[in-house]
């Protein structure tokens, strides 16, 4: 049977919501995944013969639910408990009426939230979301995270066990609980994007797949919660950064913002980000993602690095520090201050956060740059060397080695 690519694409797009709804129904992730797969197999056959149903999502859900109940019935003697639970769950109203995708928004949020289990590392949380929600294969995920498939397989199996042992409340969350879940899930997606954006090991600097999937999931979240300004901010932030991807490496060498060819930036992605940010700001409820998006937006609007509105960026970092009083935000604020008030002022700020950022490579490379600009080349060299020992990726190391050579001139 020929496998039509558009059918596979539709299954991929239906999957997050369908899996989420089936997990709510069966309260068993493995069973939900298996039921969804069986429904897709049946859809491949039936849809190619009879054409697409009016509501493909509802079709998959109904067939998936029946497939899952068949599995339960077969295992009934072995696992009576799950069968009873699934029968109790038939009170889930959405299955009686024609279900609308958006009725399942809390289910999708819950599933993503389940993946964010506090006992899991952030990498395992993302890997789990990519496996369960997106439906990537273990090989694809392993490749994206630059680990061996076998290692990833073990990690995912372990992570699944961890979340299976936990009791997630399945009743609809109240407003406060929903906001908390959105916050946790947004942070996971943000870190997933960053994992792709700034690889923590290996030669591949930007793991595009991770960035793209983080964007896909954030789009999904925003489509389900269209008035969430911080979700708009998060998506805008990702899109502003992702738009620079074509200009960010050159034959595996990292190109800093300063030296990027801005003609290579994806303009339509940037305009989409601008619209999202404008939409968010209309509400007048600023938050850390919106502010970071605004900062990324200032960079995206500048025709050249020299034309960057550093006054605005400095103001935005000061505002961000009110929401997130962390040494990293302070470090970035110092970079903006170096542009508006000079490197001597910026170095004074760095003195105050040195203790907290001892093992942070950007702290040392930033400090080195300020020292170099104020003529303290020996101190600058030492700081660059310190940054080098903390830098795992080859493209970033190459940049630092060049800087060290400059200090020796």
């Amino acid at each position, binding site marked *: 049977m020929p496998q039509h*690519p558009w059918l596979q*694409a*539709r299954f991929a797009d239906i999957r997050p919501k369908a899996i989420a709804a089936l997990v709510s129904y069966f309260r068993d992730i493995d069973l939900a995944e298996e039921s969804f797969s069986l429904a897709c197999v049946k859809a491949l056959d039936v849809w190619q013969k009879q054409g697409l149903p009016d509501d493909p999502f509802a079709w998959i859900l109904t067939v998936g639910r029946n497939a899952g109940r068949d599995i339960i019935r077969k295992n009934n003697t072995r696992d009576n408990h799950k069968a009873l639970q699934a029968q109790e769950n038939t009170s889930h109203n959405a299955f009686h009426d024609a279900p*609308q995708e958006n009725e399942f928004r809390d289910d999708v949020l819950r599933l993503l939230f389940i993946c964010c289990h506090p006992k899991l590392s952030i990498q395992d949380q993302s890997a789990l979301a990519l496996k369960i929600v997106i439906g990537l294969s273990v090989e694809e995920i392993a490749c994206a995270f630059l680990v061996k498939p076998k290692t990833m397989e073990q990690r995912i199996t372990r992570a699944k066990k961890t979340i299976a042992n936990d009791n997630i409340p399945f009743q609809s969350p109240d407003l406060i609980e929903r906001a908390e879940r959105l916050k946790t899930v947004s942070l996971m997606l943000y870190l997933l994007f960053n994992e792709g954006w700034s690889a923590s090991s290996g030669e591949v600097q930007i793991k595009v797949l991770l960035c793209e999937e983080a964007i896909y999931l954030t*789009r999904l979240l925003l489509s389900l919660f*269209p*008035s969430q300004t911080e979700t708009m901010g998060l*998506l805008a932030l990702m899109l502003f950064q992702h738009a620079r991807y074509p200009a960010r490496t050159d034959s595996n060498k990292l190109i800093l913002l300063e030296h990027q060819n801005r003609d290579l930036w994806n303009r339509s992605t940037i305009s989409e980000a601008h619209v999202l940010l404008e939409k968010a700001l209309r509400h007048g409820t600023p938050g850390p993602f919106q502010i970071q998006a605004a900062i990324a937006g200032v960079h995206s609007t500048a025709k050249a690095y020299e034309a960057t509105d550093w006054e605005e960026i400095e103001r935005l970092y000061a505002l961000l520090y009110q929401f997130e009083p962390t040494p990293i935000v302070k470090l970035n604020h110092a970079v903006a201050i170096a542009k508006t008030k000079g490197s001597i002022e910026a170095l004074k700020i760095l003195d105050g956060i040195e203790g907290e950022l001892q093992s942070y490579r950007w702290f040392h490379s930033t400090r080195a740059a300020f020292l170099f600009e104020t003529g303290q080349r020996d101190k600058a060299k030492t700081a660059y060397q310190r940054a080098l020992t903390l830098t795992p990726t080859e493209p970033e190391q190459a940049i630092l080695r060049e800087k060290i050579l400059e200090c020796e001139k």
Partner: protein
Amino acid sequence: MLYSFLIYSAEGIHGRLSPEEQKLAFKRHRLLQEELDKRGNFASARLMPVSNAVTLKSKVDQDQKTLVTDGPFADTKEQFVGFYVAEFSNLDEAINMADMISTPYHSIEVRPVSWSGGMLSNLKDD
């Protein structure tokens, strides 16, 4: 007579196709655009995702203020993702041309245009 082609699709699907499949879909659009270009004026647009949209709703109260909400006009499973406006001598011709870009995951509504304006105002319905 002017006709518009209104293209409907679930937004996420295009991005889930392989890059080759995506190129193939765009190629058919380019063929139609070349054909329409030979015939005279036309306009075409690809729209941003509905998450970028706002909807204005007139409110009938004392203030008569327009309510602006986030998101698309209606929550349906398919979104309006693009349209064509061009001159055709009859419906059949429009249908045949629209068929150049039809796929199993698009619905295309062919609907006559009763008024055109703005950049499209040079297209006369007479």
